[in-house]
């Protein structure tokens, strides 16, 4: 039997799309290149912000567990260790399973929910063992139960950097401090306040100059930046640490989508190149949808609602939902999404998303 919806990426967006559409009887296949589903949810030990509808106050990993239970309940087919590397013109998805077996899967509809990838910065010694991304440290701690090191310098004060500094302390790792090149903290004040209260310093207008050590990281040189972004003479500090943790932002993980010919645009407020889409997240290629961080870097709760929106749209298209019921559900979800894109952190994202939809480059098809 043909797959009515093939979802690439079993993170919060993909899982919610799978559950929402399967609820109405859509036959779904969920593909992920990892050996377990859930995406970044299982790295998120903090409680979510938002409203009751967004499960505010519930921790990310708990939301992940609940979603997996629900997916199982709906009998959603899951294909793990499967890398999707292309979408042929007839919407067949090309995959490599467990590094050796090639296959292709026919799909009436496709959702690309490949999420985000971490950015890096470069400095002397950046290739030394001990320099790692925030996601790597989280994976070591929360999935493999291994401490990433003894004393960590965190580079970047966005929410990821602040949260990881807190998680490291919870795991018993010393945090030498968090540095931020900008003159102000990038993440939420409450996350910053949380780590300041447990004695972790945050230094704005500071950068890493070098990761030092004979083979592994043994220390790092940190320096102050002037208003033009130049290192201030005499401001260098040698900080003892065995891990330099980079938390310097995310961008949409666009390798697959770039190979599909889907029209993209550059949206700095959304973290980089993102696919154009219409109001129900369909791209310039008919029957291919997008949801989550691939459409712009946001929170897991927006990814979840974007996934649900695609689930409803596909169920309606296949005739499993009346247009009246689908309209009600879509309006509900879109209102929730709009509510997540307000305030000083959300406004710019809302503006960029609106621009993408209103460009009209991808036509409304329903």
């Amino acid at each position, binding site marked *: 039997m043909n797959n009515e919806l093939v979802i690439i990426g079993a993170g919060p967006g993909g899982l919610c799309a799978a559950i929402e559409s399967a609820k109405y009887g859509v036959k779904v296949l969920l593909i992920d290149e990892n050996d377990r589903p859930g995406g970044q949810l299982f790295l998120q030990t*903090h*409680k*979510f*912000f*938002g*409203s*009751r509808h967004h499960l*505010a*106050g*519930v*921790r990310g990993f708990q939301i992940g567990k609940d979603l997996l239970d629900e997916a199982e309940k709906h009998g959603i087919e899951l294909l793990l260790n499967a890398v999707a590397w292309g979408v042929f013109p007839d919407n067949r998805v090309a995959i490599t399973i467990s590094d050796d077996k090639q296959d292709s899967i026919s799909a009436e509809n496709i959702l690309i929910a490949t999420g985000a990838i971490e950015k890096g910065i470069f400095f002397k010694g950046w290739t030394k063992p001990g320099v790692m991304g925030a996601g790597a440290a989280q994976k070591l701690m929360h999935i493999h139960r291994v401490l990433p090191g003894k*004393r960590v310098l965190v580079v970047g*004060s966005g929410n990821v950097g602040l949260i990881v500094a807190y998680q490291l*302390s*919870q795991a*018993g790792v*010393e945090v*030498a*401090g968090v*540095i*931020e090149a900008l003159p*102000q*903290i990038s993440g*939420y*004040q*409450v*996350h*910053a*306040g*949380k*780590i*300041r*209260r*447990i*004695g*972790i*310093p*945050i*230094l*704005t207008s500071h950068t890493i100059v070098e990761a030092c050590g004979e083979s592994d990281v043994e*220390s790092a040189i*940190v320096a102050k930046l002037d208003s033009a972004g130049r290192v201030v003479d005499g401001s260098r*500090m*040698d*900080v*003892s640490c065995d891990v330099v943790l980079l938390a310097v932002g995310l961008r949409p993980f666009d390798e697959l989508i770039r190979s599909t010919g889907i029209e993209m645009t550059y949206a700095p407020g959304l973290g980089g190149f993102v696919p154009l889409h219409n109001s129900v997240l369909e791209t310039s290629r008919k029957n291919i949808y997008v949801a989550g961080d691939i459409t712009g870097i946001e929170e897991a709760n927006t990814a979840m609602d974007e996934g649900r929106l695609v689930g409803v749209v596909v169920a309606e298209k296949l005739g499993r939902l009346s247009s009246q019921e689908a309209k009600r559900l879509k309006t509900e979800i879109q209102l929730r999404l709009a*509510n*997540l894109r*307000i*305030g*000083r*952190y*959300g406004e710019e994202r809302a503006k960029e998303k609106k621009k993408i939809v209103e460009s009209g480059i991808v036509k409304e098809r329903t």
Partner: protein
Amino acid sequence: MVEKLPNDSDDGVLSLDRIRELPGYPGKERFAKGPVVVIECDEDIPCNPCEDICPCGAITVGEPITNLPKIDPDICDGCIVCISICPGLCMFVVHRDYNETESLIYIPFEMYPLPEKGSVVDGCNRKGEPVCKARVEKVIKSKKLHKTSVIAVAVPKEFFEDVRSIRM
């Protein structure tokens, strides 16, 4: 070589002056009437679980959801339910006149191990600097608290607006 970066900047630390201006601040007079929440939330994040969970209806966020939480000091009875639901861990219940000389501060706590009841720990300010000794009066841990325990510490009254963290 330093083991820790200098901790003197105010980045990420709300000043007491600012906290006193927030709608989540119950007002100075209210502390004379028993335990009450102090909501140290100063950012328009779309978030309202505190409003939802308050059994008394003492906290209002309303529309838009980015409003800062507003406390009604006449309704709040300091029940501590909101402390654990807040994703920002920025809610504290303060009982200024716990006894003649001490205040009792209820603090969200997510570290291991938990302190022992009756033990004496450092009472720390918003920068994590020890400012006084703090006696652990209660260690509240329950499934309902979403894995955020609440620790109540008795501190000398003069520190009732300063102690927001503990260190063992």
